[in-house]
């Protein structure tokens, strides 16, 4: 009786260990599959022009070199595109955040007539992706003489349905009593907005900021449509033209791809928590 019990216990333990090992093996396998393309990118970027086309393939570069990186950074438009991408991403993130917070503030804390209607209309805009409106957007921007202007991208951030939606969710959880108290003390609405509401929405703002920065940094369609002057190109746009220009010099494009990933990777590693939150609220984006 006792014997049978202990043997079934060890059996259970064994099965549990086998289960754990199975998960590790599976996890490792998926990790390898995910990493092969990145590994390929890194080693290619460290190869010379001849080595990328050598058969058999060099899985570890025989003569690693930084030539590709040197060549990239010697191109003024490449360095410029990194600057352009940072400029657009940072400013657009700021504009998107501020405007969304302002709209959400009005939609949650100021009881005006037709508030629900305004919100309803804003939410339907969630269904209109830029893949549908980029043609007329190009036409409007051309008419306003705003193509080839990096600052014009900020105008497109005045209204972002997803950001407004998310800020509204957050601000609804802030107790109105804070505002009533401040109104009695004679504070203006702007003061309430900047001194009470914004600080209390910090976590939502952080999540939104990271999502917005990633959006802008990685965007391809709108820069492709709105920018034609090479000196104004953002990094993804320049990378895509490099691959056409230097057709078989994959060490160059891979080095460029790696450089474009690094900033976002750094943000990701230091702000993982916010990425995760962004995912859960991203769920409502549908």
């Amino acid at each position, binding site marked *: 009786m006792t014997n049978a019990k202990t043997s079934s216990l060890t059996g259970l333990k064994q099965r549990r260990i086998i289960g754990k090992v199975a*998960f590790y093996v*599976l*996890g490792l396998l*998926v*990790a390898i599959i*995910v990493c*092969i*393309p*990145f590994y*390929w*990118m890194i080693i*290619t970027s460290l190869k010379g022009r001849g080595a990328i086309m050598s*058969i058999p*393939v060099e899985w570890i570069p025989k003569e690693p070199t930084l030539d590709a990186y040197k060549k990239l950074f010697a191109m003024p438009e490449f360095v410029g595109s990194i600057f352009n991408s940072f400029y657009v991403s940072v400013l657009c993130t700021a504009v998107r955040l501020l*405007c969304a917070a*302002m*709209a959400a503030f*009005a939609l949650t804390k*100021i*009881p*005006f*007539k037709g508030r629900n209607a305004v919100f309803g209309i804003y939410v339907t*805009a969630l269904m209109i*992706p830029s*893949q*549908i*409106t*980029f*043609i*007329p957007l*190009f036409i*409007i921007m051309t*008419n306003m003489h705003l193509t080839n202007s990096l600052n014009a991208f900020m*105008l497109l*951030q005045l*209204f*972002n349905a997803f950001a*407004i939606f998310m800020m509204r969710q957050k601000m609804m959880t802030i107790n109105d009593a804070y505002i009533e108290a401040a109104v009695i003390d004679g504070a203006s*609405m702007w003061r309430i907005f900047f001194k009470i509401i914004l600080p209390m929405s910090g976590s939502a703002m952080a999540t939104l900021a990271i999502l917005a920065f990633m959006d802008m940094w*990685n965007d*391809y*369609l709108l820069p*492709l*449509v709105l920018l034609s002057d090479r000196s104004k190109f953002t990094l*993804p746009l320049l*990378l*895509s033209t490099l691959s*056409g220009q230097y057709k078989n010099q994959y060490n160059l*494009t891979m080095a460029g*791809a790696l450089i474009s*990933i690094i900033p*976002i*990777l750094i943000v*990701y*590693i230091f702000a*993982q928590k916010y*990425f995760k939150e962004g*995912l859960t609220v991203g*769920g409502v984006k*549908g």
Partner: protein
Amino acid sequence: MKNSRLASWKTALPFLLPSLAGFVVFSIIPMIMQIFVSLTSWDGLSELTLFSDFSGFMDRFYVGIENYKEILTSKEFYQVIGNTLEFVILYIPLMLIASMIVALILNSHVKGVGIFRVLYYIPVITSWVAGALIWKWVLSPEYGAINNILALFGIEGPSWLQSSKWAMPAIVLASVWKDMGYFGLMLMSGLQGINQEYYDAAAIDGAGKIKQFTRITLPLLTPTLFFVLIISLINSFQLFTQIMIMTPDGGPLGSTMVMVERIYKCGFRYYEMGTAAAYSWILFAILLLLTMVQMKLQNKWVNYDD
């Protein structure tokens, strides 16, 4: 009473002004403009006088619903739809399986799973331009990683992006790689919402792991699964960057032509803005339809019991 109403609009307006302006100028006006442009043969090069001389513009370029007719009766459109469906049929099952595996691994509570989570998410945060460039090179028939790995097992890999048969599957592979971390994490949060007691009860009744998965996990995961399915379906109709980078000319024999790629090329390569605008409306109609189907079916299929 009336005064206080006015007063609250007055207080609200400054806060709403930026978003309202952006909404009108960059969402509403473009949509309306797109209707008119879609009814014309405007080429995008000659001056657009839609605002200054509306009737003059329409007189000059008006063609009625000719653009829509032309698209819907063209062979190309059905090839585009066929390509998209090919993508959907290959991508969705593969992606669901891959992200389910990711979710199960991440939910397994083994030590060091945090590192896996970080790794699996790196493709998600990578831009599609970088991701597509990497895959284009990984899939190079002679010098790429995939075919050289296949060769180790004695398999001769296809010529991927240069083959009309394999170009779309290649796009699918890259897309599954890019998206499985995102959907995997989504499914994982769905898994975490399932009450552990169900599993305990099932274990006492002697149900094995596989039975627990098919009888408890899958049914209770349907809301999340359904959600992932719809998002990925809608995304499938908006493919663009990976197509443009991996197969800039629409693939061999047009095998990777898709909606947004057509819209872009009609407008900016062939200078047929009217056709491009009409194409956009057709895409919008498809997306609207998908969203409506989602809302309808949600109640039917989805198990919300906790």
